[in-house]
């Protein structure tokens, strides 16, 4: 079975491939071995050769975009006018900020929780009602209501903006091929660009605070919406289109009455993605003055309150899981149809119920203060107790000796030598190694891109830092394969464990990674081990998830055939299940690398010497050019891997006839 894949493409092709690969590798090795006698410019590009990209970009932004085009006046107008108005409106309703419509008190938490429970019940029965109502109840009882509402008041503006922009751009990309072609590479770069690169321009053009936070969130969350809209519209079947045309629909009617409803599922999946990405930005935008959960979390971490940051983390996870589940239920929920003559309050029974419970709690809150607001003193927060537990655990001798062992072995024997080795390799040889990898995995096209992209990185002048970034990524992805794939294989054996582990994956993915950085530092010190292990927590998620999905989707005929031919469990896994699951696993592997590039930037919070550290520095200033160059470096490296692995997965899928 595994032979199928190796026999493609044709044998002769395979031979030339091998030849080319061997030549590239040989060159790389010779260059590396010859390092001592290489002229300096072959080891690292001399400073003088590095074009002043950052300065040119600075000139572009400062002189052309800002001084000449006065683009910032437009964005500032937007930030201070309509955007500020919308943010002020939601903020007044939810948390009582002094803005139009000048409600004196924000909406009581009990009324919002009640409405959420009703909506949850409508979408997914009691379970959803409990999740939705429970999330808000938890938030209120923990004394986090007002900060959660600050976050939600910004998201309530950012998510619809992302949805609207994504929908329009998606439709445009579907209508005009040229637009589609133009936007595709931009979207690919946007999805790999580190978030710090969104933050600085957001501040410069849209003013520090919730306005910049909302814009950065929107930009970050929009790309999947565009892609999903285009995919959905392309899939609309010609019969439906015919039917629409025959009934004489105008072009506008075709779009709104035929295409968009038919693409409903994909568009709603896009909505789900927008919501999830918005929540991922909650903590990150706190760096540029977004109020709410993220800002509070950073403040708590800066005063070393582990327990309370953990509680905020739980709130973020709960809100994320609630919105995720509700929007997914919405995707599968089909529109209900009623018989003619059904009275309106039956047709709209859930809306009526929602309004009634809202009003009831609104009125009750006038008389019962606790339904309006739970004060900090009344809340159930146990931050200090959790602090004690965490610190007690970390101080256990057993824990300390184990972590010291791990730290010593990983740092001194594995990570630091590996890093030094990568840094030792001369730049051209390094590029050739990467090209060889891309060629072996993905073929010619990815190899050409790899050569171009890594050369650009070399000419950016940030080579060493880029290599250190790549080193953390590679080390982390390797380690997470060691743990994540076996975990996925284990979980895939039973339905029960699959679901449990998948839930753990969801939680790990939405849990703000900043929170475990502090305990990680306490365990492993400010070292490479801490950096790599905190990336591993994040990158294990897609590896485990896609291993489970790949293995569980192996057609049962295949496994039965293996069973009948008397294969052992191990043989079945290695020879039947794994090869078929490989393309899915590759997608997981690719995502793991993308996640690692994302997380390595966050790890700058621990203390690194990579691109993330420099990026974090730029946030404190106005160096748009440098910020952009650093961000693009990360993006270029990530895209190199993305192109190679996806091309491999696609070929493999074709070969397997999937």
């Amino acid at each position: 079975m595994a032979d199928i894949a190796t026999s493609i493409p044709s044998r002769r092709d395979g031979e030339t491939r091998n030849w080319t690969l061997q030549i590239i590798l040989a060159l790389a090795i010779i260059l590396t071995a010859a390092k001592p006698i290489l002229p300096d410019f072959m080891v690292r590009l001399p400073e003088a050769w590095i074009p002043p990209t950052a300065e040119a970009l600075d000139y572009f932004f400062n002189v052309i975009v800002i001084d000449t085009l006065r683009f910032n006046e437009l964005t500032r107008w937007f930030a201070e006018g309509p955007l500020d108005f919308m943010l002020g409106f939601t903020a007044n309703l939810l948390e009582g900020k002094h803005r139009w419509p000048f409600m004196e008190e924000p909406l009581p938490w009990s009324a919002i929780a009640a409405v959420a429970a009703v909506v949850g019940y409508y979408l997914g029965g009691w379970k959803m009602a409990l999740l939705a109502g429970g999330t808000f109840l938890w938030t209120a009882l923990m004394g986090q209501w007002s900060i959660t509402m600050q976050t939600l008041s910004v998201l309530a503006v950012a998510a619809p903006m992302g949805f609207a922009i994504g929908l329009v751009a998606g439709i445009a990309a579907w209508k005009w091929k040229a637009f589609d072609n133009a936007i595709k590479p931009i979207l690919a770069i946007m999805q790999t660009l580190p978030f710090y690169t969104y933050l600085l321009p957001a501040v410069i053009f849209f003013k520090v605070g919730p306005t910049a936070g909302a814009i950065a969130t929107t930009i970050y969350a929009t790309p999947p919406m565009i892609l999903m809209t285009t995919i959905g519209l392309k899939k609309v079947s010609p019969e439906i289109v015919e039917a629409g045309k025959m009934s004489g629909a105008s072009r506008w009617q075709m779009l709104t009455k035929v295409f968009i409803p038919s693409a409903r599922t994909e568009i709603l999946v896009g909505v789900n993605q927008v919501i999830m990405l918005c929540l991922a930005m909650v903590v990150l935008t706190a760096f540029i003055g977004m109020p709410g959960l993220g800002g509070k979390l950073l403040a708590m971490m800066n005063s070393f309150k582990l327990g309370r940051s953990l509680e905020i983390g739980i709130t973020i996870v709960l809100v994320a899981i609630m919105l995720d589940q509700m929007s997914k239920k919405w995707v599968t929920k089909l529109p209900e149809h009623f018989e003619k003559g059904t009275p309106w309050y039956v047709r709209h029974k859930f809306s009526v119920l929602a309004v009634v419970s809202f009003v009831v709690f609104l009125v009750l809150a006038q008389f019962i203060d606790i339904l309006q607001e739970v004060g900090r003193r009344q809340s159930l927060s146990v931050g200090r107790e959790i602090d004690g537990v965490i610190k007690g655990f970390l101080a256990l001798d057993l824990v300390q000796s184990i972590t010291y062992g791990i730290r010593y072995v990983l740092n001194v024997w594995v990570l630091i030598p590996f890093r030094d080795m990568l840094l030792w390799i001369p730049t051209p040889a390094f590029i050739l190694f990467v090209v060889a990898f891309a060629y072996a995995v993905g073929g010619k096209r990815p190899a050409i891109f790899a050569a171009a992209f890594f050369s650009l990185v070399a000419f950016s002048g940030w080579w060493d830092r880029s290599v250190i970034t790549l080193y953390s990524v590679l080390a982390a992805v390797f380690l997470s394969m060691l743990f994540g794939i076996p975990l996925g294989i284990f979980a895939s054996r039973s339905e029960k464990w699959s679901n449990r582990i998948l839930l753990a994956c969801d939680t790990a993915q939405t849990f703000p990674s900043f929170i475990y950085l502090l305990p990680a530092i306490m365990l492993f010190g400010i070292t490479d081990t801490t950096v790599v292990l905190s990336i591993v927590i994040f990158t294990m998620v897609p590896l485990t998830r896609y291993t489970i999905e790949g293995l569980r989707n192996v057609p049962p005929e295949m496994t039965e055939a293996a069973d009948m031919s008397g294969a052992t469990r191990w043989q079945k896994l290695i020879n039947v299940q794994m090869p078929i699951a490989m393309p899915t696993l590759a997608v997981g592997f690719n995502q793991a690398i993308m996640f690692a590039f994302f997380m390595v930037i966050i790890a700058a919070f621990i203390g690194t010497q990579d691109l993330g550290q420099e990026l974090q520095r730029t946030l404190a200033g106005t160096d748009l050019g440098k910020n952009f160059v650093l961000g693009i470096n990360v993006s270029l490296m990530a895209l190199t891997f993305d192109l190679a692995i996806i091309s491999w997965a696609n070929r493999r899928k074709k070969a397997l006839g999937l």
Partner: protein
Amino acid sequence: MKTKMILSAAALAVASATASWSAEDSSDPIVIPIHNWSSQIVMSHVVGQMFESMGNNVEFVTTDSQAVYESVRLGDVALELEVWEGAFGASFREALSKGGLHDAGDHNAVTREDWWYPMWTKDACPGLPSWEALNDCAHLFATAETGDKGLFLDGPVDWLKHGKERAEALGLNYVVKNAGSAAALWAHIGAAEADKKPILVFNWTPNFAEAVWPGEFVEFPEWEDGCDTDPSKGPNPDALYDCGNPADGYLKKAAWDGMKDKWPNAYEVLTKISFNNAQIAAMAKLVDIDEYEPEEAAEIWLEENEDVWKDWMPDGSS
């Protein structure tokens, strides 16, 4: 929700009628920046609540503590209450030279930032706080990665603390590593706390950490002007940064140039405000130790210290 709505303009009209000063403050919100350490957050709320009691409209925005000077300069935020000489002096001076903001007076407080150790370290290395004891104790501060050398954990690189240069200039047998954030410094101290492991980190005062982990600054050769620009200053004639940081740095307030005209009364109050070290520490304690929310902490502080802040307020306003 109480259904009664109030119009800010009406409220302001009433409030400013009671103020005895001639000019009136604009009804636009005074935007006060807050950062990620407690004393600054509480102080901002204290001042914000003082402004509110004068009938002003106040809003808070969380910003980066270095980038804030650009925001003050542009008028995006109206003022900054804690300008630390050591940490933000450079950003402040740069913004000052570009124009748009100005110095609104000093607090009656000194700031200091330097190499620091928690008290338990002294048991292991009794020669401290003199810097000359550092080399003898280097092995105590060693970690798995540093070999025989000691580890000094410096602040994030963007704080520009020149720990490496100082270690070299004074011939210290130490590896200097940069933490990625203030939180990483605390985690490092927190991890050492259980075993009372000797550590050396960058720290500053006033700061909540003093209350959580009592400690001392290392006494380096005293700061001389020019120690960072002139090699001949300090004990090592060939090196820069061979002195400790100034032990009595200023703590300033900064204001946007437009604030004076837009909110003259609030501006007047701002220039009079001056907190001392004890008051700042008390503000931080309310949040860091007593676990109040910053807004509540500010209310409590204002209640307990009426005699302090009433003098700064315009006559006739409550």
